[in-house]
């Protein structure tokens, strides 16, 4: 678990959770104590051999790790350039990378003696991953989900209910992920004594961005070993979609010190980055403070958070994890944005050429990686984080095709 990072000059966050000017702790006073408790637990247990052994065992036997690194031969020839590998997080239990984080956080919840867990969810993948581990551990579970997302992710809503979770519909604000996060924070502040908040991405107040990154870094560590075994060298580029940014951070983190490996985070350009209908915080946002952290944010000139759009519910979020903001400013990672249309192209290409239905979130990464592979040309290697499977999106795709499923 605690494999040291390759970078010697990269030691973020600082003790108060800052990644350069980003990150930090921006919450109401009531949450300062539970965050301090979580920080202590994070510092103790993520170095505790017994805890790490249990986590590794759960990742192997319950999640199904390691996930394969698959050479996508037909996708490679389709895009006509660099070799494309897919890191198959879609094959994890519950169908996405989200479970890597929830199996870890639920162990922390147990160690802290909390009987109740809460979470926010957008696409429903994190909600399902939380409801899953809560069922396994016998803890009460409440999931907050925007009314808009409940509609477009009906299957995941029902999965959560089957797993015994209470799903609370959030009707405030834009009725999507950001509002679900607000409501989860309101729950936490109210039930702070018995409740553990399982945040689903590398965002929020310290220590969440670091904690979730460390739990997701298993993706990058495996990828590193697997590509070395397959190609006897590191890849030229890593590509991952970025909403809050947890699957990207998990893939990138173990490669940060490998300067020859380029890293690309792909945001949702929705109907176009020059329209009002996108969710590209890093590409088109400004610095702001929301949900406990300072980072890039989609906001108007008065500091009000603006509504976002993406075909994929999981990227439909106006903020982004603070470490991505830092990687962008420092130039270590590049951030680009793909439109709904481009993402759909990625979705169909993966489906038809490889027989793999990717999540619409991951389809953004495929779309950009295709263009990148084509530009890089042969003899180069690109790894895409296929962060989740697309079963949950079948209704959205069908609706776009004018078909009722």
């Amino acid at each position, binding site marked *: 678990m605690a494999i040291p990072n390759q970078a010697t000059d990269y030691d973020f966050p600082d003790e*108060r959770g800052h990644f350069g000017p980003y990150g*930090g*702790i*921006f*919450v*109401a*006073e*009531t*949450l*300062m*104590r*539970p965050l301090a408790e979580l920080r202590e637990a994070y510092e103790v247990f993520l170095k505790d051999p017994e805890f790490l052994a249990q986590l590794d065992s759960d990742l192997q036997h319950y999640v199904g790790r390691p996930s394969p690194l698959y050479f996508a031969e037909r996708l490679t020839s389709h895009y006509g350039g660099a070799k494309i590998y897919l890191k198959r997080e879609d094959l994890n239990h519950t169908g996405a990378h989200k479970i890597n984080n929830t199996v870890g956080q639920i162990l922390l919840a147990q160690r802290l003696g909390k009987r109740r867990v809460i979470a926010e969810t957008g696409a429903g993948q994190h909600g399902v991953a939380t409801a899953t581990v809560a069922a396994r551990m016998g803890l009460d579970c409440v999931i907050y989900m925007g009314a808009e997302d409940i509609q477009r992710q009906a299957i995941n809503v029902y999965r959560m209910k089957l797993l015994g979770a209470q799903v609370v519909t959030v009707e*405030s*604000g834009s009725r999507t992920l*950001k*509002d679900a996060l*607000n409501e989860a*924070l*309101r729950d936490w*502040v*109210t*039930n*702070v*004594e018995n409740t553990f908040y399982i945040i689903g991405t590398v965002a929020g107040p310290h220590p969440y961005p670091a904690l979730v990154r460390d739990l997701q870094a298993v993706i990058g560590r495996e990828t590193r070993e697997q590509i070395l075994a397959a190609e006897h060298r590191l890849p030229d580029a890593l590509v991952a979609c970025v909403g809050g940014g947890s699957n990207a951070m998990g893939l990138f983190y173990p490669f940060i010190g490998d300067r020859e490996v380029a890293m690309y985070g792909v945001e949702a350009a929705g109907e176009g980055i020059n329209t009002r209908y996108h969710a590209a915080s890093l590409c088109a946002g*400004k*610095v*702001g*403070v*929301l*949900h*406990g952290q*300072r980072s890039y*944010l989609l*906001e108007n*000139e*008065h*500091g*009000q*958070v*603006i509504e976002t759009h993406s075909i994929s519910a999981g990227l439909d979020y106006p903020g982004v994890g603070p470490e991505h903001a830092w990687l962008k400013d420092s130039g270590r990672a590049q951030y680009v944005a793909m439109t709904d249309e481009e993402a759909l192209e990625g979705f169909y290409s993966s489906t038809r050429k490889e027989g793999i239905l990717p999540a619409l979130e991951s389809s953004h990464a495929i779309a950009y990686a295709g263009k990148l592979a084509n530009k890089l040309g042969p003899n180069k290697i690109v790894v895409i984080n296929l962060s989740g499977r697309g079963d949950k999106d079948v209704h959205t795709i069908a609706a776009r095709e004018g078909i009722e499923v």
Partner: protein
Amino acid sequence: MFKELRGEQRAALIPYITAGDPQPAATVEIMRLMVEAGADAVELGVPFSDPMADGPVIQRASQRALTHGVSIGDVLAMVAKFRENQPDVPVILMGYLNPVEVMGYEIFAKRAAESGVDGVITVDMPPEEAADLSAALTTRGIDSIYLLAPTTDPDRVRMICDRASGFVYYVSLRGVTGAGHIDVAEVEDHVRDIKTQCALPVGVGFGIDSPPVAAEMSRFADAVIVGSAVVRCIEQADGDMQQIRQSLTDFIGSLREAIGKRPQPLAATP
């Protein structure tokens, strides 16, 4: 701000409204009528798109204000207008950091001072992150008012009191504004503990929804802050200014009655 607060016979009454609710033109009038009805100071909420610490009543007030496009600059202009014939009544802004962050700390502090703001509460900015903003405000004579919560341990209470000025704001329950589960005895214990460690006056707010609860709080608090219950009076009037005047005058008057009158009006320290 409240030099004379502590040691007074009676607690100060501080009602909260969200600026721009139900419409921007109404705010200054509402502030004035609350003072006439017995408010000692006014807490003015800066509307924000994501009010994470607020319950449904103040969330809706924020949304109503934002449908009129009320910005932090507009809020400061309202304070300046209020100041035209209320030079002394303290005005405290309460809001979230991002609008201030986007305006810039220095510009905000300068404009807030020019408008006559006495204190600023930034709900989602704990003192650990507040050094720059606090310095900008202090330079211009504006108080940084911090929250203390039921979960704040004694060491932290001391640390926060050291950095606070004006008064400290004790959050009287675990929850959001307007929640309905206040425990008066627990609040009293906490406030009395805080007072042993803190020289500043202690205001109490969150969940104080009626004159009897306000009266209970006033036995041990230096100031009683009432938010959601006041905002509800505005909401229920559904835009009818005549009804807002009547219902706020009655409600603030009944709070004043319950808390008790102070011998002379409270004035902001220069």
